[in-house]
């Protein structure tokens, strides 16, 4: 599936999937900087076994080729011990390395939450600015693959809430590579959430190294009639809706924040100033979601520009169901997004 027209890669660049783009970013940064290391479960795979020395290269193939290329000293398979993994990454980050730790599924954050929330996020502040924690936590997130409740969460609202953390959610391969390189070079703890459904989506991605700054939203489509903010796997859906409406003469700004912390609230507010209408699409559950957060920011700072109530399109207040039809109903669909846009345009 192609995401044509999303960002700044152009026809001269080779087409790569999100998985390939992130993998390339890791290869390029590990080549450039010997202090970058990878830790996680099955990041190479096969440790202590009799078969291949790279049995997986990451369960979704994200870290393929790194183990054979850089050795097990820098690509470290770990036991299934999330708090040890993330704790080691935090301690190593404070003492000279730039670790990229993998949390195989963001749902597993429960068992290592302390190391993220109480330790890594707070070091710099608690220690009066003396600690620097340049670590990346990569985690697979989101629903859509029928992986059921404990392997399908979107926890970016929880992470965005915490001061000291940065939260990145690329929606396409071009952004994924640039944001990953930026995350590795960033001197603060970065949670890099990779949506399962996006891994095999593709678009043009340059071979050379480039970064995308945090806190700058991408405008995937532009138009003055309505502002649609979407993140992660919701971005391609929002684009499809916007293109469908464009055929009817309705033109929307589709804004992908790319990072929810820091958030480019400025870009969102400017767009709402022009359009007066806002729809926010967020796969998270509705209470305390990033949709709720963005709505609150807009209501507080651009109230006089609003011409209709704000509409949020989110998952329901439930865990992720297993049955395919139920999971499809759980995730914000194109139809629901389109209806939300029509609602704010024709406010009844």
């Amino acid at each position: 599936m192609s995401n044509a027209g999303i960002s700044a890669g152009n026809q001269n660049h080779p087409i790569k999937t999100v998985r390939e783009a992130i993998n390339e970013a890791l290869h390029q940064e590990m080549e450039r900087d010997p202090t970058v290391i990878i830790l996680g479960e099955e990041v190479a795979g096969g440790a202590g076994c009799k078969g291949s020395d790279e049995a997986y290269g990451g369960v979704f193939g994200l870290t393929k080729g790194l183990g054979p290329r850089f050795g097990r000293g820098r690509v470290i398979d770990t036991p299934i011990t999330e708090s040890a993994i993330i704790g080691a990454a935090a301690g190593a980050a404070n003492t000279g390395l730039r670790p990229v730790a993998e949390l195989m599924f963001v749902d597993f954050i429960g068992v290592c939450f302390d190391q993220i929330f109480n330790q890594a996020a707070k070091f710099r502040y608690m220690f009066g600015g003396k600690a620097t924690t340049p670590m990346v936590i990569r985690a697979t997130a989101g629903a859509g693959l029928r992986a059921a409740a404990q392997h399908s969460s979107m926890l970016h609202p929880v992470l965005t809430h915490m001061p000291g953390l940065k939260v990145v959610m690329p929606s396409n391969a071009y952004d994924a590579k640039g944001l990953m390189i930026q995350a590795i070079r960033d001197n603060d703890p970065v949670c890099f959430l990779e949506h399962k459904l996006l891994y095999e989506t593709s678009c043009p991605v340059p071979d050379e190294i480039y970064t995308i700054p945090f806190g700058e939203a991408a405008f995937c489509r532009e138009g003055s009639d309505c502002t649609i903010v979407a993140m992660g796997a919701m971005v391609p859906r929002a684009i499809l809706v916007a293109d469908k409406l464009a055929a009817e003469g309705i033109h929307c700004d589709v804004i992908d924040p790319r990072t929810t912390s820091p958030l480019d609230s400025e870009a969102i507010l400017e767009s709402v100033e022009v359009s007066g209408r806002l729809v926010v699409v967020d796969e998270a559950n509705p209470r305390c979601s990033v949709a709720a957060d963005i709505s609150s920011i807009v209501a507080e700072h651009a109230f006089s520009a609003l011409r209709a109530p704000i509409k949020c399109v989110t998952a329901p207040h439930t865990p992720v169901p297993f049955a395919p039809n139920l999971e499809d109903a759980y995730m914000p669909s194109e139809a629901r997004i389109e209806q939300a846009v029509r609602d704010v345009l024709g406010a009844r």
Partner: protein
Amino acid sequence: MKYSKQLLVEAYKTMTTIRQFEERMIKEFMAGNIPGFVHTYDGQEAVGVGVCMHLSDEDIIGSTHRGHGHCIAKGCDIELMILEIMGKSGGLCKGKGGSMHIADMDKGMLGANAIVGGGPPLVNGAALSMKTLGKPDVAVSFSGDGSSNQGTVMEALNLAGVLDLPHFFVFENNHLAEGTGDEYAVSGGIAERVRAFDIPCDKVDGTDFFAVYEASKKAIKHCRSGKGPYGIEADVIRYDGHFIGDPQAYRGEGELEYLREHKDCLKIFRARVTSEGWMSDTELDELDQHAADAIEKGVQRGLAAPQPSADELYSDVYSSY
């Protein structure tokens, strides 16, 4: 003489500094000059000092909530520590960490950790850095009998063993996890747990500086030579409550008096060095006085110092945002 005068002087000086520092912190807390909680290390000095005397600024330690002693033993400035504990501007962490988060990265002190069991996984990380970057340094975690039950500590032991990390696990068993004794709460033994991960672990009398010193020397040499992690379980006592103000209702009748008389590591040290003729009482008393003076000076400075300025609230969240 087995031990140089310089070593003995430094050892006693550091231990008496810790003892008097903690006793003074208790007084200042009771007088209302210290906000929050404080957990004092008095009684356990021999372990912190016995271990840290083998360490340089490049070696790393990670501590617990009971971190003042480790901090002083690792060489942190006591005046800056006092400022931090009092929450004043100019403190070791600009007054933003307090007693439980006291740290000094320049001195290799990775921080006191208010989360029980929070330290060992982080110290694994420091050890991983050293190994990856090819440094000859060692990373030391201090844990209590309470944290020996935490899953994070087990995971850290396992990972240290798996990756052969230069991590020296020091367990200070003061037989109390808050108000619960280790006889009840620890199923099995601490050293036995460490050994279960195929990591060698020695049991040490934690009230005897020299025993701790020798055991640490062996362990640290093991770690520095790339042989992987090592552990000790030091048998110690703490005099004061889990926190200052703790009435220690869990102590038996006369227990504290007995401990102060028979299990005081400073008294034990004094008895040893004087009987061996290595130092005199006068020399030891002088070191006591110097420590007292330094602490008095630090306390006066701390009491007079201003609180952090209001904009410190917002600084140091990120390197850049």
